[in-house]
Protein backbone atom coordinates (compact mmCIF):
# COMPACT_ATOMS: atom_id res chain seq x y z
CA UNK A 1 0.00 0.00 0.00
CA UNK A 2 1.50 3.30 -0.99
CA UNK A 3 1.42 6.26 1.34
CA UNK A 4 1.10 9.69 -0.33
CA UNK A 5 4.13 11.89 0.28
CA UNK A 6 3.40 14.68 2.71
CA UNK A 7 4.98 18.01 1.77
CA UNK A 8 6.03 20.04 4.79
CA UNK A 9 6.42 23.68 3.92
CA UNK A 10 8.32 24.64 7.03
CA UNK A 11 11.18 22.41 5.94
CA UNK A 12 13.76 23.96 3.66
CA UNK A 13 17.04 22.63 2.35
CA UNK A 14 20.17 24.20 0.91
CA UNK A 15 21.11 23.48 -2.68
CA UNK A 16 24.49 24.39 -4.07
CA UNK A 17 24.25 25.46 -7.67
CA UNK A 18 27.77 25.46 -9.01
CA UNK A 19 30.59 26.48 -8.88
CA UNK A 20 30.84 23.92 -11.67
CA UNK A 21 27.42 23.84 -13.21
CA UNK A 22 26.78 24.20 -16.94
CA UNK A 23 24.02 26.77 -16.38
CA UNK A 24 26.27 29.19 -14.51
CA UNK A 25 28.66 29.51 -17.48
CA UNK A 26 31.87 29.55 -15.59
CA UNK A 27 32.56 29.27 -11.92
CA UNK A 28 29.67 31.02 -10.22
CA UNK A 29 28.16 29.38 -7.19
CA UNK A 30 24.68 30.17 -5.97
CA UNK A 31 23.64 29.04 -2.53
CA UNK A 32 19.94 28.33 -2.81
CA UNK A 33 17.63 27.77 0.12
CA UNK A 34 14.80 25.73 -1.37
CA UNK A 35 11.28 24.89 -0.37
CA UNK A 36 10.65 21.99 -2.71
CA UNK A 37 11.07 23.43 -6.20
CA UNK A 38 10.70 27.01 -5.00
CA UNK A 39 13.55 29.30 -4.06
CA UNK A 40 13.28 30.84 -0.60
CA UNK A 41 16.64 32.59 -0.70
CA UNK A 42 19.31 32.87 -3.34
CA UNK A 43 22.79 34.01 -2.50
CA UNK A 44 25.43 34.23 -5.25
CA UNK A 45 28.92 33.36 -4.03
CA UNK A 46 31.59 35.03 -6.14
CA UNK A 47 35.33 35.04 -6.37
CA UNK A 48 36.15 31.61 -7.76
CA UNK A 49 38.08 33.13 -10.66
CA UNK A 50 39.29 36.30 -8.98
CA UNK A 51 42.75 37.33 -10.24
CA UNK A 52 43.17 40.86 -8.79
CA UNK A 53 43.58 42.64 -12.11
CA UNK A 54 43.46 45.98 -10.30
CA UNK A 55 46.65 45.16 -8.43
CA UNK A 56 48.31 43.99 -11.65
CA UNK A 57 47.48 47.38 -13.18
CA UNK A 58 49.35 49.17 -10.40
CA UNK A 59 52.43 46.99 -10.82
CA UNK A 60 53.27 47.60 -14.48
CA UNK A 61 53.27 50.67 -16.67
CA UNK A 62 50.23 51.76 -18.64
CA UNK A 63 50.91 49.70 -21.75
CA UNK A 64 51.71 46.56 -19.81
CA UNK A 65 48.15 46.28 -18.53
CA UNK A 66 46.73 46.19 -22.06
CA UNK A 67 46.75 42.36 -22.46
CA UNK A 68 44.96 42.00 -19.12
CA UNK A 69 41.97 43.96 -20.36
CA UNK A 70 40.98 41.14 -22.72
CA UNK A 71 40.99 38.58 -19.96
CA UNK A 72 38.07 39.93 -18.01
CA UNK A 73 35.12 39.91 -20.36
CA UNK A 74 36.55 37.44 -22.84
CA UNK A 75 33.38 37.55 -24.93
CA UNK A 76 33.61 41.27 -25.61
CA UNK A 77 37.32 41.75 -25.14
CA UNK A 78 37.65 44.62 -27.59
CA UNK A 79 35.25 46.75 -25.56
CA UNK A 80 37.57 46.33 -22.58
CA UNK A 81 40.50 47.26 -24.83
CA UNK A 82 38.51 50.31 -25.86
CA UNK A 83 37.49 51.34 -22.36
CA UNK A 84 41.02 51.17 -21.01
CA UNK A 85 42.43 53.03 -24.02
CA UNK A 86 39.80 55.77 -23.58
CA UNK A 87 40.71 56.20 -19.92
CA UNK A 88 44.43 56.45 -20.59
CA UNK A 89 43.96 58.66 -23.64
CA UNK A 90 41.77 60.99 -21.59
CA UNK A 91 44.41 61.17 -18.85
CA UNK A 92 47.35 61.68 -21.21
CA UNK A 93 45.46 63.89 -23.67
CA UNK A 94 46.09 61.69 -26.71
CA UNK A 95 44.22 62.35 -29.95
CA UNK A 96 43.22 59.33 -32.04
CA UNK A 97 43.29 59.54 -35.87
CA UNK A 98 39.88 59.31 -37.49
CA UNK A 99 40.55 56.11 -39.41
CA UNK A 100 41.61 54.41 -36.20
CA UNK A 101 38.35 55.50 -34.53
CA UNK A 102 36.37 53.95 -37.37
CA UNK A 103 38.34 50.72 -37.20
CA UNK A 104 37.77 50.64 -33.44
CA UNK A 105 34.03 50.98 -33.89
CA UNK A 106 33.93 48.32 -36.63
CA UNK A 107 35.88 45.76 -34.64
CA UNK A 108 34.10 46.49 -31.36
CA UNK A 109 30.72 46.06 -33.00
CA UNK A 110 31.82 42.81 -34.68
CA UNK A 111 32.96 41.61 -31.30
CA UNK A 112 29.57 42.61 -29.89
CA UNK A 113 27.95 40.40 -32.54
CA UNK A 114 30.07 37.42 -31.48
CA UNK A 115 29.16 38.09 -27.85
CA UNK A 116 25.43 38.24 -28.53
CA UNK A 117 25.57 35.18 -30.78
CA UNK A 118 27.37 33.18 -28.13
CA UNK A 119 24.95 34.37 -25.46
CA UNK A 120 22.06 33.32 -27.67
CA UNK A 121 23.55 29.88 -28.18
CA UNK A 122 24.40 29.30 -24.54
CA UNK A 123 21.09 30.70 -23.30
CA UNK A 124 19.13 28.31 -25.48
CA UNK A 125 21.35 25.48 -24.40
CA UNK A 126 20.34 26.31 -20.81
CA UNK A 127 16.71 26.11 -21.85
CA UNK A 128 17.25 22.73 -23.51
CA UNK A 129 17.60 23.60 -27.19
CA UNK A 130 20.74 22.21 -28.75
CA UNK A 131 20.62 22.96 -32.47
CA UNK A 132 20.59 26.80 -32.14
CA UNK A 133 24.11 26.48 -30.73
CA UNK A 134 25.32 25.01 -33.98
CA UNK A 135 23.81 27.81 -36.08
CA UNK A 136 25.17 30.55 -33.85
CA UNK A 137 28.66 29.07 -33.68
CA UNK A 138 28.67 28.71 -37.46
CA UNK A 139 28.08 32.48 -37.78
CA UNK A 140 30.40 33.36 -34.93
CA UNK A 141 33.26 31.46 -36.54
CA UNK A 142 33.00 33.70 -39.60
CA UNK A 143 33.54 36.81 -37.49
CA UNK A 144 36.35 35.21 -35.52
CA UNK A 145 38.13 34.34 -38.78
CA UNK A 146 37.80 37.94 -39.94
CA UNK A 147 39.01 39.39 -36.65
CA UNK A 148 41.85 36.89 -36.50
CA UNK A 149 43.13 38.21 -39.84
CA UNK A 150 43.72 41.68 -38.47
CA UNK A 151 44.11 41.29 -34.72
CA UNK A 152 46.07 38.04 -34.61
CA UNK A 153 43.88 36.35 -32.03
CA UNK A 154 40.43 34.84 -31.83
CA UNK A 155 39.27 35.54 -28.30
CA UNK A 156 41.55 37.53 -26.00
CA UNK A 157 42.35 40.42 -28.29
CA UNK A 158 45.02 42.97 -27.57
CA UNK A 159 44.43 45.00 -30.69
CA UNK A 160 44.01 48.59 -29.52
CA UNK A 161 46.92 50.85 -28.70
CA UNK A 162 46.98 54.24 -27.03
CA UNK A 163 46.35 56.60 -29.91
CA UNK A 164 45.01 54.07 -32.40
CA UNK A 165 45.04 50.40 -33.29
CA UNK A 166 47.83 47.91 -33.90
CA UNK A 167 47.10 47.06 -37.50
CA UNK A 168 45.30 48.59 -40.45
CA UNK A 169 42.42 46.66 -41.98
CA UNK A 170 42.73 45.47 -45.57
CA UNK A 171 40.42 45.05 -48.55
CA UNK A 172 39.90 41.37 -47.88
CA UNK A 173 38.66 42.15 -44.38
CA UNK A 174 36.28 44.81 -45.71
CA UNK A 175 34.92 42.54 -48.44
CA UNK A 176 34.62 39.67 -45.97
CA UNK A 177 32.73 41.83 -43.47
CA UNK A 178 30.24 43.01 -46.10
CA UNK A 179 29.73 39.40 -47.18
CA UNK A 180 29.25 38.28 -43.56
CA UNK A 181 26.65 40.94 -42.84
CA UNK A 182 24.75 39.92 -45.97
CA UNK A 183 24.90 36.32 -44.83
CA UNK A 184 23.76 37.01 -41.24
CA UNK A 185 20.93 39.23 -42.52
CA UNK A 186 19.64 36.37 -44.65
CA UNK A 187 19.94 33.87 -41.80
CA UNK A 188 18.49 35.97 -38.96
CA UNK A 189 14.80 35.83 -39.91
CA UNK A 190 14.64 32.11 -40.67
CA UNK A 191 17.21 30.40 -38.48
CA UNK A 192 17.02 32.73 -35.52
CA UNK A 193 13.59 34.28 -35.36
CA UNK A 194 11.34 31.71 -37.08
CA UNK A 195 13.01 28.76 -35.39
CA UNK A 196 13.55 30.18 -31.92
CA UNK A 197 12.02 33.58 -31.16
CA UNK A 198 8.56 32.54 -32.28
CA UNK A 199 8.83 29.13 -30.67
CA UNK A 200 5.99 28.54 -28.23
CA UNK A 201 8.22 26.65 -25.78
CA UNK A 202 10.66 29.56 -25.61
CA UNK A 203 7.87 32.08 -25.15
CA UNK A 204 6.29 30.03 -22.37
CA UNK A 205 9.62 29.83 -20.56
CA UNK A 206 10.46 33.53 -20.85
CA UNK A 207 7.26 35.61 -20.93
CA UNK A 208 6.42 37.02 -17.53
CA UNK A 209 9.37 35.23 -15.88
CA UNK A 210 12.10 37.06 -14.01
CA UNK A 211 10.36 40.39 -13.56
CA UNK A 212 12.90 43.13 -12.90
CA UNK A 213 11.08 46.42 -12.48
CA UNK A 214 12.46 49.73 -13.65
CA UNK A 215 12.94 50.94 -10.09
CA UNK A 216 14.69 47.72 -9.05
CA UNK A 217 17.01 47.99 -12.05
CA UNK A 218 17.97 51.50 -11.01
CA UNK A 219 18.48 50.68 -7.35
CA UNK A 220 20.80 47.82 -8.27
CA UNK A 221 22.69 49.88 -10.86
CA UNK A 222 21.75 47.66 -13.81
CA UNK A 223 22.89 48.79 -17.25
CA UNK A 224 23.04 47.39 -20.75
CA UNK A 225 20.41 45.02 -22.14
CA UNK A 226 19.22 44.18 -18.60
CA UNK A 227 18.26 47.83 -17.99
CA UNK A 228 16.91 48.25 -21.52
CA UNK A 229 14.67 45.22 -21.04
CA UNK A 230 13.19 47.03 -18.04
CA UNK A 231 12.22 50.11 -20.02
CA UNK A 232 15.30 52.21 -19.26
CA UNK A 233 16.57 53.99 -22.35
CA UNK A 234 20.23 54.01 -21.42
CA UNK A 235 23.11 53.22 -23.73
CA UNK A 236 26.53 54.77 -23.14
CA UNK A 237 27.01 55.08 -26.90
CA UNK A 238 24.06 57.51 -26.99
CA UNK A 239 23.98 59.02 -23.49
CA UNK A 240 27.67 59.72 -23.17
CA UNK A 241 28.92 59.57 -26.76
CA UNK A 242 32.52 58.52 -27.24
CA UNK A 243 34.70 57.67 -30.25
CA UNK A 244 32.81 58.30 -33.53
CA UNK A 245 29.45 56.81 -32.47
CA UNK A 246 27.57 60.12 -32.89
CA UNK A 247 28.24 59.92 -36.62
CA UNK A 248 26.21 56.74 -37.07
CA UNK A 249 22.51 56.29 -37.30
CA UNK A 250 21.35 53.51 -35.00
CA UNK A 251 18.55 52.86 -32.55
CA UNK A 252 18.64 51.76 -28.93
CA UNK A 253 16.10 48.95 -28.53
CA UNK A 254 14.06 49.36 -25.35
CA UNK A 255 11.37 46.99 -24.10
CA UNK A 256 9.01 47.77 -21.25
CA UNK A 257 7.93 44.22 -20.36
CA UNK A 258 10.67 43.80 -17.70
CA UNK A 259 10.75 40.00 -18.17
CA UNK A 260 13.32 37.58 -19.57
CA UNK A 261 11.70 37.79 -23.00
CA UNK A 262 12.26 41.56 -23.06
CA UNK A 263 15.97 41.10 -22.37
CA UNK A 264 16.09 38.42 -25.07
CA UNK A 265 14.45 40.75 -27.58
CA UNK A 266 16.79 43.65 -26.71
CA UNK A 267 19.81 41.56 -27.60
CA UNK A 268 18.25 40.19 -30.77
CA UNK A 269 17.49 43.77 -31.90
CA UNK A 270 20.99 44.86 -30.97
CA UNK A 271 22.44 42.33 -33.40
CA UNK A 272 20.65 44.19 -36.18
CA UNK A 273 21.73 47.61 -34.89
CA UNK A 274 25.36 46.50 -34.67
CA UNK A 275 25.22 45.37 -38.28
CA UNK A 276 23.86 48.79 -39.24
CA UNK A 277 26.75 50.52 -37.47
CA UNK A 278 29.37 48.28 -39.10
CA UNK A 279 27.90 48.90 -42.55
CA UNK A 280 27.84 52.66 -42.10
CA UNK A 281 31.38 52.69 -40.73
CA UNK A 282 32.68 50.63 -43.64
CA UNK A 283 30.89 52.92 -46.12
CA UNK A 284 32.35 56.06 -44.58
CA UNK A 285 35.80 54.67 -43.70
CA UNK A 286 38.27 57.56 -44.13
CA UNK A 287 41.90 57.25 -45.24
CA UNK A 288 44.84 58.16 -43.06
CA UNK A 289 47.07 56.81 -40.32
CA UNK A 290 45.76 54.28 -37.81
CA UNK A 291 48.02 55.22 -34.95
CA UNK A 292 49.09 58.54 -33.50
CA UNK A 293 52.65 59.14 -32.38
CA UNK A 294 52.64 58.37 -28.68
CA UNK A 295 55.67 58.15 -26.35
CA UNK A 296 56.52 54.63 -25.22
CA UNK A 297 56.35 55.53 -21.54
CA UNK A 298 53.32 57.61 -20.61
CA UNK A 299 53.28 59.92 -17.62
CA UNK A 300 49.82 61.49 -17.41
CA UNK A 301 49.24 64.48 -15.15
CA UNK A 302 48.12 63.75 -11.60
CA UNK A 303 44.40 63.52 -11.08
CA UNK A 304 41.60 61.06 -11.56
CA UNK A 305 39.77 60.27 -14.74
CA UNK A 306 36.72 58.22 -15.61
CA UNK A 307 35.88 56.66 -18.97
CA UNK A 308 32.80 54.59 -19.78
CA UNK A 309 32.04 52.40 -22.77
CA UNK A 310 29.07 50.23 -23.67
CA UNK A 311 30.00 46.57 -23.73
CA UNK A 312 27.63 43.79 -24.72
CA UNK A 313 26.61 43.63 -21.06
CA UNK A 314 26.39 47.29 -20.15
CA UNK A 315 28.27 50.27 -18.82
CA UNK A 316 31.94 49.44 -18.31
CA UNK A 317 33.80 52.13 -16.39
CA UNK A 318 37.48 52.67 -15.77
CA UNK A 319 38.49 55.00 -12.95
CA UNK A 320 42.13 55.87 -13.40
CA UNK A 321 44.00 57.68 -10.62
CA UNK A 322 47.37 59.03 -11.71
CA UNK A 323 50.12 60.58 -9.63
CA UNK A 324 52.39 61.70 -12.46
CA UNK A 325 54.41 58.48 -12.54
CA UNK A 326 54.70 55.90 -15.30
CA UNK A 327 52.29 53.40 -13.79
CA UNK A 328 48.65 53.88 -12.75
CA UNK A 329 48.36 54.80 -9.07
CA UNK A 330 45.02 53.07 -9.04
CA UNK A 331 42.72 51.55 -11.62
CA UNK A 332 39.16 50.74 -10.68
CA UNK A 333 37.21 48.48 -13.03
CA UNK A 334 33.47 48.92 -12.89
CA UNK A 335 32.20 45.75 -14.52
CA UNK A 336 28.58 45.80 -15.70
CA UNK A 337 27.68 42.20 -14.78
CA UNK A 338 28.81 42.69 -11.18
CA UNK A 339 25.97 45.17 -10.75
CA UNK A 340 23.57 43.29 -13.02
CA UNK A 341 23.94 40.09 -11.01
CA UNK A 342 23.47 41.85 -7.66
CA UNK A 343 19.69 41.94 -8.24
CA UNK A 344 19.56 38.14 -8.58
CA UNK A 345 18.92 37.46 -4.90
CA UNK A 346 15.90 39.75 -4.74
CA UNK A 347 14.36 38.74 -8.08
CA UNK A 348 14.88 34.98 -7.71
CA UNK A 349 13.03 34.86 -4.39
CA UNK A 350 9.90 32.75 -4.70
CA UNK A 351 10.76 31.57 -8.21
CA UNK A 352 10.83 28.01 -9.48
CA UNK A 353 14.40 26.76 -9.81
CA UNK A 354 14.01 26.16 -13.55
CA UNK A 355 12.70 29.71 -14.03
CA UNK A 356 15.54 31.16 -11.99
CA UNK A 357 17.99 29.47 -14.32
CA UNK A 358 16.23 31.02 -17.31
CA UNK A 359 16.39 34.39 -15.55
CA UNK A 360 20.08 33.92 -14.82
CA UNK A 361 20.72 33.10 -18.47
CA UNK A 362 18.89 36.25 -19.55
CA UNK A 363 21.29 38.35 -17.45
CA UNK A 364 24.12 37.24 -19.77
CA UNK A 365 26.75 36.57 -17.13
CA UNK A 366 30.45 36.38 -17.84
CA UNK A 367 32.04 35.26 -14.60
CA UNK A 368 35.68 36.37 -15.14
CA UNK A 369 34.30 39.88 -15.60
CA UNK A 370 32.40 39.77 -12.31
CA UNK A 371 35.36 38.39 -10.37
CA UNK A 372 38.07 40.35 -12.18
Amino acid sequence: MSVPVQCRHDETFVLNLGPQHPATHGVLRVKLTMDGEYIVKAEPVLGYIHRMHEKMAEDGNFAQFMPNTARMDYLHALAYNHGYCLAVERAAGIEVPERAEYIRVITVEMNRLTSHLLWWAAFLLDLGGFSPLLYAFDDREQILDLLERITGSRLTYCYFRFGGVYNDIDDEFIAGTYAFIKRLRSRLPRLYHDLVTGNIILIKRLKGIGMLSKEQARRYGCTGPVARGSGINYDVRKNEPYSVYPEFDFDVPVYNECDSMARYMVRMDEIEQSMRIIEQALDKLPDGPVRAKVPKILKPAAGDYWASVETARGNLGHRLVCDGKKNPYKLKLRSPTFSNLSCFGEVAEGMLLADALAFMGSLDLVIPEIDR
Partner: protein
Amino acid sequence: MSIVEETRRALLVLFPELAAVEEEARAAAQAEAEIQAAEEAAAAEKDENEMDALLAERDAVRLDAESAKQSVAADEDNLEAAEQEDPAAEKKEKEPEEEGPRENGIVLTDHASRGTDIDVFCDPDQVVAAAGIMDEAGFFLEAITGVDWIKEDKLEVIYDYNQYGQEQCRVVVRTFVSRTEPEIPTIMDVMPSADWHERETHDFYGIRFTGHPNLIPILLPEDADFHPLLKDFTP
Protein backbone atom coordinates in the same frame (compact mmCIF):
# COMPACT_ATOMS: atom_id res chain seq x y z
CA MET B 1 18.21 74.61 -15.57
CA SER B 2 20.59 71.88 -16.60
CA ILE B 3 20.68 68.62 -14.69
CA VAL B 4 24.22 69.37 -13.50
CA GLU B 5 23.09 72.65 -11.96
CA GLU B 6 19.99 71.03 -10.49
CA THR B 7 22.03 68.27 -8.88
CA ARG B 8 24.60 70.73 -7.61
CA ARG B 9 21.87 72.72 -5.87
CA ALA B 10 20.40 69.54 -4.38
CA LEU B 11 23.83 68.59 -3.03
CA LEU B 12 24.32 72.03 -1.45
CA VAL B 13 22.13 70.79 1.41
CA LEU B 14 25.23 68.94 2.63
CA PHE B 15 27.18 72.15 3.05
CA PRO B 16 25.13 74.75 4.91
CA GLU B 17 28.01 77.28 4.94
CA LEU B 18 28.46 77.05 1.19
CA ALA B 19 24.74 77.30 0.68
CA ALA B 20 24.63 80.37 2.94
CA VAL B 21 27.44 82.04 1.00
CA GLU B 22 25.68 81.32 -2.23
CA GLU B 23 22.36 82.54 -0.85
CA GLU B 24 24.05 85.78 0.23
CA ALA B 25 25.59 86.23 -3.20
CA ARG B 26 22.23 85.63 -4.77
CA ALA B 27 20.54 88.09 -2.42
CA ALA B 28 23.22 90.71 -3.12
CA ALA B 29 22.82 90.18 -6.83
CA GLN B 30 19.08 90.51 -6.50
CA ALA B 31 19.39 93.70 -4.44
CA GLU B 32 21.71 95.13 -7.06
CA ALA B 33 19.27 94.21 -9.77
CA GLU B 34 16.49 95.93 -7.80
CA ILE B 35 18.51 99.11 -7.42
CA GLN B 36 19.29 99.06 -11.10
CA ALA B 37 15.66 98.45 -11.92
CA ALA B 38 14.63 101.34 -9.65
CA GLU B 39 17.08 103.63 -11.43
CA GLU B 40 15.71 102.54 -14.74
CA ALA B 41 12.20 103.10 -13.55
CA ALA B 42 13.17 106.61 -12.44
CA ALA B 43 14.63 107.25 -15.87
CA ALA B 44 11.48 105.94 -17.44
CA GLU B 45 9.43 108.27 -15.24
CA LYS B 46 11.55 111.14 -16.44
CA ASP B 47 10.69 110.16 -19.98
CA GLU B 48 7.13 110.04 -18.91
CA ASN B 49 7.28 113.64 -17.63
CA GLU B 50 8.74 114.80 -20.87
CA MET B 51 6.04 112.96 -22.69
CA ASP B 52 3.52 114.66 -20.43
CA ALA B 53 4.67 117.99 -21.61
CA LEU B 54 4.66 116.93 -25.19
CA LEU B 55 1.36 115.17 -25.41
CA ALA B 56 -1.87 116.95 -24.80
CA GLU B 57 -4.13 113.95 -24.32
CA ARG B 58 -3.89 112.44 -20.85
CA ASP B 59 -5.30 109.03 -21.76
CA ALA B 60 -2.64 108.43 -24.35
CA VAL B 61 0.04 109.36 -21.80
CA ARG B 62 -1.33 106.93 -19.25
CA LEU B 63 -1.32 104.13 -21.78
CA ASP B 64 2.29 104.88 -22.73
CA ALA B 65 3.43 105.04 -19.14
CA GLU B 66 1.79 101.75 -18.38
CA SER B 67 3.49 99.99 -21.24
CA ALA B 68 6.82 101.55 -20.17
CA LYS B 69 6.30 100.22 -16.67
CA GLN B 70 5.53 96.78 -18.05
CA SER B 71 8.69 96.66 -20.09
CA VAL B 72 10.70 97.78 -17.07
CA ALA B 73 9.20 94.92 -15.07
CA ALA B 74 10.12 92.51 -17.84
CA ASP B 75 13.68 93.84 -17.86
CA GLU B 76 13.86 93.36 -14.13
CA ASP B 77 12.85 89.71 -14.53
CA ASN B 78 15.49 89.12 -17.16
CA LEU B 79 18.14 90.73 -15.02
CA GLU B 80 17.23 88.59 -12.07
CA ALA B 81 17.41 85.43 -14.14
CA ALA B 82 20.80 86.42 -15.49
CA GLU B 83 22.09 87.22 -12.01
CA GLN B 84 20.89 83.93 -10.61
CA GLU B 85 23.03 81.92 -12.98
CA ASP B 86 26.10 83.97 -12.19
CA PRO B 87 27.10 82.59 -8.77
CA ALA B 88 27.59 79.11 -10.28
CA ALA B 89 29.93 80.43 -12.93
CA GLU B 90 31.80 82.48 -10.35
CA LYS B 91 32.21 79.46 -8.11
CA LYS B 92 33.66 77.45 -10.94
CA GLU B 93 36.39 80.02 -11.39
CA LYS B 94 36.93 80.50 -7.70
CA GLU B 95 37.57 76.82 -6.98
CA PRO B 96 40.21 75.48 -9.30
CA GLU B 97 41.26 71.86 -8.84
CA GLU B 98 43.84 72.39 -6.20
CA GLU B 99 46.69 69.98 -5.63
CA GLY B 100 46.93 70.20 -1.87
CA PRO B 101 44.40 69.15 0.76
CA ARG B 102 40.90 69.89 -0.36
CA GLU B 103 38.22 71.58 1.61
CA ASN B 104 34.73 70.17 1.80
CA GLY B 105 32.58 71.36 -1.02
CA ILE B 106 31.36 70.90 -4.54
CA VAL B 107 33.46 71.37 -7.65
CA LEU B 108 32.14 71.30 -11.20
CA THR B 109 34.53 69.37 -13.44
CA ASP B 110 34.90 69.28 -17.19
CA HIS B 111 33.33 66.13 -18.56
CA ALA B 112 35.48 66.02 -21.70
CA SER B 113 38.79 65.98 -19.83
CA ARG B 114 37.77 64.24 -16.60
CA GLY B 115 34.78 62.06 -17.40
CA THR B 116 32.85 63.44 -14.43
CA ASP B 117 30.63 66.48 -13.96
CA ILE B 118 30.28 67.09 -10.23
CA ASP B 119 32.93 66.35 -7.65
CA VAL B 120 31.74 66.38 -4.04
CA PHE B 121 34.12 66.22 -1.14
CA CYS B 122 32.56 65.62 2.27
CA ASP B 123 33.03 64.19 5.76
CA PRO B 124 32.75 60.40 6.23
CA ASP B 125 29.49 60.73 8.14
CA GLN B 126 27.88 62.67 5.28
CA VAL B 127 28.03 59.89 2.68
CA VAL B 128 24.67 58.46 3.72
CA ALA B 129 23.00 61.85 3.33
CA ALA B 130 24.72 62.24 -0.03
CA ALA B 131 23.47 58.82 -1.13
CA GLY B 132 19.96 59.84 -0.06
CA ILE B 133 20.12 62.99 -2.19
CA MET B 134 21.41 61.00 -5.17
CA ASP B 135 18.70 58.38 -4.74
CA GLU B 136 16.00 61.03 -4.63
CA ALA B 137 17.40 62.65 -7.77
CA GLY B 138 17.08 59.31 -9.60
CA PHE B 139 20.75 58.40 -9.77
CA PHE B 140 22.14 54.88 -9.65
CA LEU B 141 25.35 53.74 -8.00
CA GLU B 142 28.07 52.94 -10.51
CA ALA B 143 30.86 51.89 -8.18
CA ILE B 144 32.43 52.26 -4.76
CA THR B 145 36.16 52.08 -4.43
CA GLY B 146 39.08 53.20 -2.32
CA VAL B 147 42.47 54.74 -2.95
CA ASP B 148 45.38 54.21 -0.59
CA TRP B 149 47.28 57.49 -0.07
CA ILE B 150 49.97 55.92 2.04
CA LYS B 151 52.21 59.00 2.10
CA GLU B 152 49.44 61.13 3.61
CA ASP B 153 48.48 58.20 5.83
CA LYS B 154 44.84 58.11 4.77
CA LEU B 155 42.40 56.18 2.64
CA GLU B 156 40.10 57.81 0.15
CA VAL B 157 36.63 56.33 -0.39
CA ILE B 158 35.02 57.17 -3.73
CA TYR B 159 31.36 56.75 -4.67
CA ASP B 160 30.40 57.14 -8.33
CA TYR B 161 26.84 58.01 -9.24
CA ASN B 162 25.31 58.26 -12.68
CA GLN B 163 21.82 58.62 -14.10
CA TYR B 164 19.90 57.30 -17.09
CA GLY B 165 18.87 60.67 -18.55
CA GLN B 166 19.90 61.83 -21.99
CA GLU B 167 21.87 64.69 -20.47
CA GLN B 168 25.19 63.63 -19.01
CA CYS B 169 25.80 64.06 -15.28
CA ARG B 170 28.21 61.85 -13.37
CA VAL B 171 28.68 62.67 -9.68
CA VAL B 172 31.67 61.65 -7.60
CA VAL B 173 31.37 61.71 -3.83
CA ARG B 174 34.67 61.30 -2.05
CA THR B 175 35.85 61.35 1.51
CA PHE B 176 38.92 60.46 3.55
CA VAL B 177 39.16 57.99 6.43
CA SER B 178 42.17 57.27 8.60
CA ARG B 179 44.44 54.42 7.59
CA THR B 180 44.64 52.91 11.05
CA GLU B 181 40.91 52.96 11.85
CA PRO B 182 39.16 52.98 8.48
CA GLU B 183 35.46 53.21 9.29
CA ILE B 184 32.59 54.69 7.36
CA PRO B 185 28.81 54.21 7.62
CA THR B 186 27.18 51.92 5.06
CA ILE B 187 24.86 53.38 2.42
CA MET B 188 23.20 50.01 1.86
CA ASP B 189 19.90 51.10 3.37
CA VAL B 190 19.59 53.79 0.72
CA MET B 191 21.18 51.97 -2.21
CA PRO B 192 20.90 48.16 -2.07
CA SER B 193 23.46 47.87 -4.87
CA ALA B 194 26.06 49.19 -2.42
CA ASP B 195 25.99 45.82 -0.66
CA TRP B 196 28.44 44.08 -2.98
CA HIS B 197 30.46 47.20 -3.78
CA GLU B 198 31.08 47.80 -0.07
CA ARG B 199 32.04 44.18 0.50
CA GLU B 200 34.50 44.45 -2.39
CA THR B 201 36.00 47.67 -1.00
CA HIS B 202 36.30 46.01 2.40
CA ASP B 203 38.11 43.06 0.73
CA PHE B 204 40.63 45.21 -1.06
CA TYR B 205 41.24 48.02 1.45
CA GLY B 206 39.97 46.79 4.79
CA ILE B 207 37.57 49.72 5.11
CA ARG B 208 34.85 48.76 7.58
CA PHE B 209 31.38 49.84 6.55
CA THR B 210 29.60 50.13 9.88
CA GLY B 211 26.03 48.88 9.83
CA HIS B 212 26.62 46.51 6.91
CA PRO B 213 24.91 43.26 7.93
CA ASN B 214 27.06 40.89 5.92
CA LEU B 215 30.57 42.30 5.56
CA ILE B 216 32.24 39.02 4.55
CA PRO B 217 34.75 38.59 1.71
CA ILE B 218 33.08 38.61 -1.69
CA LEU B 219 35.92 38.22 -4.19
CA LEU B 220 38.72 37.06 -1.89
CA PRO B 221 38.70 33.60 -0.25
CA GLU B 222 36.25 33.34 2.63
CA ASP B 223 39.05 33.14 5.22
CA ALA B 224 41.09 36.04 3.79
CA ASP B 225 42.52 38.41 6.39
CA PHE B 226 44.61 40.53 4.02
CA HIS B 227 43.78 43.56 1.91
CA PRO B 228 45.73 43.36 -1.36
CA LEU B 229 45.18 46.87 -2.71
CA LEU B 230 46.85 48.54 0.26
CA LYS B 231 50.17 49.89 -0.95
CA ASP B 232 52.11 48.18 1.84
CA PHE B 233 50.64 44.75 1.11
CA THR B 234 53.17 42.02 0.45
CA PRO B 235 51.88 38.64 -0.65
